[in-house]
Structure formats: C-alpha cells, structure tokens
C-alpha cells in the first residue's frame, strides 16, 4: 500500500513555492485540503510520496521554506 506524507506550511504562498520547487525536480506531489486532524493552519497542504521523504524535505529546506509540520498518512 502506498504511503503518503503531508507537509503543512504557515502560508499558502509557501505551499505554492514548494509545489513548484518539488515538481520541478520530478517529485510527485499533490495539493490537498489540509486534513482537519492535523491542523487548520493553512487551507492547503502538500502531499508527497513517503518514499521521497529525504528528497522532498531537503528540497523544501533548500527553498528556505518554513515547515509547520510533517505528518504521515
């Protein structure tokens, strides 16, 4: 079974920036409504393949985006 991770950011602008940076590097990402159990912080969250955890988090760090939280789902 596939496993996903969800990254929550503070602001939608960061979500958009992360999506661009990750998609540009070939990561499979999808923007989804933030699951309520995680937070109501920002309406949109970024879903990624958990297998790509290292790549995704390092690319987000390289883009100097502040992560609010990362959850596995």
């Amino acid at each position, binding site marked *: 079974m596939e496993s996903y991770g969800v990254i929550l950011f*503070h*602001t*939608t602008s960061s979500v958009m920036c992360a999506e661009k940076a990750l998609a540009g590097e070939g990561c499979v990402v999808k923007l989804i*409504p933030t699951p309520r159990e995680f937070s109501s912080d920002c309406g949109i969250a970024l879903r990624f393949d958990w297998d790509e955890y290292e790549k995704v988090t390092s690319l987000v760090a390289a883009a100097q985006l502040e992560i609010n939280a990362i959850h596995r789902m």
Partner: protein
Amino acid sequence: MIYLDNAATSWPKPPPVLKAMTDVLESAGGNPGRSGHRLSIAAARVMYDTREDIARFFHAPDPMHVIFTGNATQAINIALRGLLKPGDSVITSSMEHNAVMRPLRSLEKRGILVKVIPAARDGSLKVEDMSGAISPGTRLVVINHASNVAGTLLPVSEVSAIARRANALLLVDAAQTAGVIPIDMQAMGIDLLAFTGHKGLQGPPGTGGLVIGSGVDVSRIEPLMYGGTGSQSELEEQPPFLPDKFESGTPNISGIAGLRAALGWLTDRGVESVRAREKELTRALIDGLSGLPGVSVYGPLDPERSVAIVSITIKGRQNSEVGLRLDEEHGILSRVGLHCAPAAHKTIGSFPEGTVRFAPGVFTTIADIHTVIKAVGEVIRSWKATG
C-alpha cells in the same frame, strides 16, 4: 484620439492583460488560499506566480516579501502608518504626491516629526539638503522615484546611502517609474518599494503592492488591515509572517492575473527599450512645446533626468480650457490641474492653477507627438484670433 494621460493610468492595456483577466475568472475562479479545491488552488498558483514575477522584476529578496495591495497609495499607507510611531522623525521631499503627503500630515498630528526638504524649481533634489536634515532620530526617508507633475527623477541611490548611514529606512514611491525605468531594489538600496500595477507596468487598475527588503524588521510594522488570510484560522490574532500579515481579505485575483500578463508583455518588450522610446517622445514633446508662443514647460527639460511627463502652462490661458479644447476639438486627452500633488506644484511655481500635463505611454508614436504640438499651437492661435 490620442491618449496622453498615461501618468494617471496607462491606456490601452496590452490585449493579453484583458484575456488573462477573463481567463482566470473562468478557469481559476476560486478564492486563493482559502479552500483546498482545484479552483482555489489554481487561483493560489496564479497569485504565487505573480509574486515571483514581481520579485524578479524589482530584484526583491524573496517572493514572500511581495505584498499585494489595491494601489501604490495603500502600499505607502502600510509602510508609513505601520512603521512610524510617535517620537519618530521622517524626511521627505517637497515633490511628493498626496499619497505620501496626506498620510504624513495625519501622522504629524499623532506626534511624528515630518521634515520636508525643498526641491529646486525643476523638481530636482540636492542630496546635500537631504543629508543635512537627517538626524539619529530619523526613522524613515520617503521619496518618489519620479514626480507625477514634472517627471523629474529623484536620486534614489544617493538618498539610500544617506539614509543607511543614519540607520533610517528608505521607502520609494515608484508609481511613475515601475515599468518605465529599471528598478533593482537591492542595487539601489531600497528598503520598501511601493508600486502600482496600472501605470507603467501596463496592468489593470486595482493592483499594486509593497515590496519589503530583507533589511526591514517586519515585526515592527503594524498591519493597516486585519482579517482573514486563510492561514492560522484557529487564532483570532493576525499571523506574524509574510505575506499574510499584510494581506487580509479576498485579493483581486483577476487584477493580479492581468498584472502578471502585463509583466510578461513588458518583459518581452524590455523596460530598457520602453525607456529609450519614451525619452525620444519626451524630447520631441519638450522641444515642440517650448517653441510655441506663451508656453512655459516645467521640469528639468531633459529626458535623461525625467520620465515621460511634460507639464506646461500657457500665458493668459486657463488650463481647464486648454484641456477641454484639446479633448473636444483635437481628440487629445491630457490632465489639467494639480494632479493630487499641491506640494509639487508649489515647488515648481504652478500653484494653485496647476498645469496641463502630457504623459505619453508605450503606445504613443512620434506622429502623435507632432499632432499634439500642432494642436496646442492651434489652440493658442485660435484663442488669439477670437480674443
């Protein structure tokens, strides 16, 4: 019809701007950052892409430092009213638009010391005068990049160096230069850049922004507006991070999409080439109008030192009558009066009557300029004939 009121708002807009505005409402009509569905996400992407384009255009440190507003006035108000506290001192020039002067006069009543440095009659500012007025209590220097009345460019980089030495921030009102003069915030040392989308940038009205430099402590700027941002919705307090802190309320997504298309159009054309062409038009306008009987031309009379704005008065003639006759008899649209800048008119010596202002734009041709010069000549002659 010849439209020479581009300093008020540029017209016509490039066709891709109109298309982008309707397209976004059709295909990305959600509320950006509020919901998680596809239309909301599509709108958020348009907004973020525009943020990136603006950051690149002005050499801003980070797209998150681009705050969208309805116009330059709102951006200037965020900076002035958010930053200045009672006891602070602020320095400005006598060439400012009321977008700067009115907030400052209001702040003055709340205990902020406002120093206005007089400019010369051609609208130019001596850097030494600015330097002499700065003191350790100076929190901010605010100047326009170019005057909306005389077109005169102010020495932004030099003023920035002076402000920096005194630990003051520099806010630049780029309403008349964004899109027609290259602006590099970092190279020019601009801490806060207020721009409007609907003039030189060729975008729609209702767009603009404040770009915040990396040296500005954002925690010291109070928002002008508080409200929903789509973030930290569990809290009743305003989020502290950019851009949300200053962007409460549903944004003008069709305007922002239009602005993005305008930036693309302008970038293809090249700001340098727009500038080169406008200098040519300005030169022709100054030379032609200066040669007409009774005409006084204001400003530096040198396109190298101004943007494409030429203000005139005609001896013994009312500006409003000149403007009306140019419109009705010749189809030439100018702007007469005080141009929301009484201080600037006092400086150049045209207060309270004001001037007749001609502001060519990217679609103005040299043939248009010749037609305008001829028409002004006819207005003067026919007046003399009728007496």
